[in-house]
């Protein structure tokens, strides 16, 4: 494996470990979203929200929409890398000799 790929895989490994370690060592927590924790903290005061979301998907639908968001982003990123890689490969290849 080239040094370039090795470093890339180590970067991926670092990200995976940073996500996995909390799950392993903190498995008794719910991993509630920080945004939601802040909302709970504000709800303890006498503040009441004055505006409600126009559209609120159910939890199941919301997780699907989050997946859709990630998929759209991932798809575009993959497309960009695919185009850039193909372009570079074609630029490197010498032109076909005339028949």
């Amino acid at each position, binding site marked *: 494996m080239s040094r370039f790929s090795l470093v890339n895989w180590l970067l991926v490994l670092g*990200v995976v470990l*940073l996500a996995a370690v*909390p*799950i392993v060592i903190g498995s008794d*927590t719910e991993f509630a979203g*920080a945004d939601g924790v802040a909302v709970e903290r504000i709800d303890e005061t006498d*503040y009441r929200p004055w505006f409600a979301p126009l559209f609120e998907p159910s939890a199941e639908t919301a997780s699907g929409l989050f997946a859709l968001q990630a998929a759209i*982003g991932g798809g575009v990123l993959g497309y*960009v890398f695919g185009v*850039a890689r193909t372009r570079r490969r074609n630029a490197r290849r010498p032109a076909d000799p005339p028949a």
Partner: protein
Amino acid sequence: MHIAEGYLPPLHALAWTAVAAPFVVHGARAVVRQVREEPETRLLLGAAGAFTFVLSALKLPSVTGSSSHPTGTGLGAILFRPPVMALLGTIVLTFQALLLAHGGITTLGANAFSMAVVGPWVAYAVYALVRRIGGGLSVAVFLAAALADLATYCTTAVQLALAHSDAASGVAGALAEFLAIFAVTQIPLAVSEGLLTVLVVRLLTRVSPAELARLGVRPARQEV
């Protein structure tokens, strides 16, 4: 860092919208100019927007026992300068506010200010500083993306503390509480975001070196 719909008092919501709006309008013009003047960078512009789209959809667990998401705004700020991310980040936040009830319309200004304005500018400043003092590309990108992520969450904590000051300890007490919720959780996620951004920049320097060089992003010779 999404402040939920209706959780900023009207005056605060209005004020943050007024603060963020000029940045977003300026950002929209910057995107149009970028596409018109350097159409060959459109692909990378798409990559920058897509990166923010993916990362802000990922909810990652943190060592604090809660979870949160990266912002992905550092990459675009480094490649295209911060104004471009003011628009792209706000588009992502609008998508989440309208379709996911994540964030909100009334809080869009505050959320756009923290994620699409403060984050990108911190990223750009850190990147420029590290490069100027001779840091390598990877180090500069890592610090820029990680600190931009953290700065976004600290901004959210400040915004909430100003709106919901503690009865006993005032704004400072509320700030400490919100920083404990947002900033502490975010530290490992900021590191993750830094690593992911370095990965994408490394891959881009491999497949698209000419475009990156045109945008002024050049790896040191030994890094190629």
